[in-house]
């Protein structure tokens, strides 16, 4: 299913982003976007540095938006290595995980290695059932379910009922489509 994500471009606030007040203002913007759009991308293109308090506010807002489960995906994009490192530290303190688009791949910030491997395989499949991914990863379904829950909490995948299921209920899982994300970000 194709969606048009809402892109929050942080560059318009400046190259150096800091202060908790600005972070709170961006958090409100994210909250608003989460109510209005089917998917949200926070774009750091053109941002050189950001302070921990600022990123803390942004990360909390994104995790809250993901917990609201209204979006198909919630992503970060165009973080340089400094920003990614600081965000990872912030997420470590919050005990959360977020997903960033980097080099046309979905990458987890704050997540464990096996989760990243699961996400990489899931991205290869695009849209899939849990059984299909479990087979690809050669893991048992109960183990995979835990990982899928964590990936959902990171905003990396969404699930919905499979309308093609012939009997009972079958869940269909999906990662963000990179092509769709790139089109949304194509502003530079």
């Amino acid at each position: 299913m194709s969606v048009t994500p809402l892109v929050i471009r942080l560059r318009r606030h400046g190259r150096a982003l800091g202060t908790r007040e600005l972070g709170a203002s961006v958090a409100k913007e994210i909250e608003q976007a989460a109510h209005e759009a089917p998917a949200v991308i926070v774009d750091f293109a053109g941002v050189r540095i950001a302070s921990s308090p600022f990123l803390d506010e942004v990360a909390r807002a994104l995790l809250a938006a993901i917990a609201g489960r209204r979006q198909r995906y919630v992503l970060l994009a165009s973080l340089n290595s400094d920003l990614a490192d600081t965000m990872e530290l912030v997420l470590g303190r919050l005990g959360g995980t977020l997903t960033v688009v980097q080099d046309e791949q979905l990458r987890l910030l704050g997540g464990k290695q096996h989760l990243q491997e699961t996400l990489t395989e899931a991205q290869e499949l695009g849209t899939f059932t849990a059984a299909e991914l479990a087979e690809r990863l050669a893991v048992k379904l109960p183990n995979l379910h835990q990982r899928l829950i964590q990936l959902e909490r990171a905003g990396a995948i969404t699930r919905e009922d499979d309308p093609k299921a012939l009997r009972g209920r079958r869940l269909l899982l999906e990662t963000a489509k990179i092509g769709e994300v790139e089109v949304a970000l194509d502003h530079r």
Partner: protein
Amino acid sequence: MVRREDALTSLLAEELDGEPDAELMISAPHVSEVDVVTGAAIRMRIARHLRKHVAGGVTIVPPRDATVAGRLLDLLEPLPGRVVVTAREGAGEGSRFALLPATQIADAQDARLAGEMALDASEGARIADDRAAVIALAAMELADNALACGRRRGPAPGG
């Protein structure tokens, strides 16, 4: 070594009209030789400063070499009342302060702009990217923290 031309240049240099209590600091820890002309020039410079700044003073940090220090002080004798000789290579008593260029930070937006300015200045000075980032973040965070502390303290007395 303080050359005669250095001493005379200092003596003849234009002096801005400043506060009446302005301090003159003569820092000479690395001086290895002095002569009579140098001594006379410094003595005249001190006298001019005390004349122009009626409430000001002079602090002398003498050469580290005891012989050179003794010779310099001999040449400056008798020292006027508002002249202090200190062995420390820092500010003398009564001048424990420094003037730094400062930008008023009124709100969080100013704090963020201070970081942006520090980033631009660091990059303009060709400071390495990672260091420039640290400098800019420090400027921004310190300014933001100062604002937070200021807000907690409430209005100034009588304000």
